[in-house]
């Protein structure tokens, strides 16, 4: 017993650590306009491909723009859009999955077949196709990723509802005259949220990479908006001349994705151990 409590404490501290780190990232992205050393969009022919120095902490890119400032501003785009995308797909997927699992029958078949159709396509290929058809821009890129993104939460929610539906306390709630809506929101939802939030946290990193990928391919964010994927794309032709212009956004992406992934892991470990059986 003692050993278990100790490890729970340890997991709690790890969770708090990564929550704090993720929080720092969010704060940085919020405060980006204030902490940018230079104007992220200001080009300068004199400063093209300059190495990191006092004036430009991460150097400049081929247009003479401050890489550091662009990375900071890009964090807003990358983090916000990934979080927004995950939030939207989470809600949509969860609602559809819960309804499918609870009511079964035609609704269940409809939702699941729809999910199957979406999942039949490789996610990135479909995203590229959709984004290409709709044109560029972050909004369309998010839509492209979101079209398949909801299926994950729908399946998870449905599986949870199916498993919990037969629990005696759910029967007891129904026999107390509670409407289906009340049972779903007040009884089932709190018990399901744990694993689903863990999935969502881990998906932030996945979505971030997906969006960066679309931008890298030129069908996400358009210039001159700062976004890590598109920055890598813009600067890769000059990789040998100005590697910092590629490294900075790449490392930023890696660090951010890792922090969110670890956050997801910590949440899962903490909740797994702490779940009352």
């Amino acid at each position, binding site marked *: 017993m003692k050993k278990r409590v100790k490890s729970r404490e340890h997991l709690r501290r790890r969770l708090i650590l990564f929550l704090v780190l993720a929080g720092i990232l969010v704060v940085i992205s919020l405060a980006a306009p204030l902490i940018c050393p230079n104007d992220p969009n200001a080009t300068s022919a004199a400063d093209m491909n300059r190495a990191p120095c006092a004036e430009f902490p991460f150097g400049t890119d081929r247009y003479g723009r401050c890489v550091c400032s662009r990375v900071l501003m890009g964090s807003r785009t990358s983090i916000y859009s990934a979080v927004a995308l995950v939030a939207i797909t989470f809600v949509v997927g969860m609602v559809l999955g819960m309804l499918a699992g609870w009511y079964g029958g035609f609704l269940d078949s409809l939702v699941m077949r729809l999910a199957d159709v979406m999942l039949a396509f490789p996610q990135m290929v479909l995203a590229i196709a959709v984004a290409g058809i709709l044109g560029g821009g972050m909004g369309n890129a998010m839509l492209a990723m979101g079209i398949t993104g909801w299926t994950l939460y729908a399946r998870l929610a449905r599986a949870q509802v199916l498993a919990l539906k037969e629990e005696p*306390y759910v029967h*007891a709630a129904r026999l107390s005259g509670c409407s289906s809506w009340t049972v779903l929101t007040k*009884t089932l939802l709190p018990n399901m949220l744990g694993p689903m939030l863990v999935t969502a946290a881990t998906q932030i990193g996945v979505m971030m990479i997906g969006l960066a990928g679309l931008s890298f391919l030129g069908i996400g964010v358009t210039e001159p908006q700062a976004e890590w994927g598109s920055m890598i794309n813009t600067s890769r032709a000059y990789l040998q001349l100005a590697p910092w212009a590629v490294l900075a956004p790449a490392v930023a992406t890696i660090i951010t994705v890792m922090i969110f992934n670890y956050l997801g892991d910590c949440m899962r470990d903490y909740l797994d151990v702490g779940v*009352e059986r």
Partner: protein
Amino acid sequence: MSVLEGKGLKKRYQKQNRVIEALRGVDFHLEDGEILGLAGESGSGKSTLLKLIAGLEPPSEGSILLHGRELSTRRTKEDYRSMQMIFQSAGGSFHPRRTIYDSIAESLHSLRGREARVDVEAISDMVGLPPELMSRYPRQLSGGQCQRMAIARAMAVQPEILLCDEITSALDVSSQAQILRLVADICRENSTSAIFVSHDLAVIRCLCDRVMVMKDGALVEEGSVEQVILQPREDYTRRLVDSVLQI
């Protein structure tokens, strides 16, 4: 007129590509103030019948009448209030993250209106438990205590019928004895009728007035407990009675 009546109840389940007939046309009746036992082995359909009666699942065919009025698939709150169910898994029938008090209050407010007062003293007194236990979580109570609280929650809304699904099967023998006595006392004091499902004929013998023996979704024999257990007419009933190990 019977308090509760069932006519031609059938229930079919679709499992992969097979159809399972859990109930094959069962009739029953429950009189005022009596405790009816549903006996049978696993797969006999007794729990399925109880679920149909409670309204957890709709029958494939047949009807259920409460005081002569047919119950529709969509039950009203008043229907739910008149029939309360107690489950086999004592702790499992309470929401794991709510206190016992919250669960009972939720049920009471839902079925008796928001103004209904949760009389903690009276409720715990009825089942012989100290009132402090109501502020605990289900996992902090023993199996027997949880089952008593489940009975308390059911009786708090003053139902006419108690539906008991193997409520003592998961309990130790002394807790089982306590619960049986409690159910007998409560039903007698409140003139509540009950349907008691159990695979244990000895339990049915000491608690119930009448018993229905079921096998493979159909009724095999029915009658008073003395008659069915001491003088069974059917071979299957006789085999069941002979299998009871006694002290």
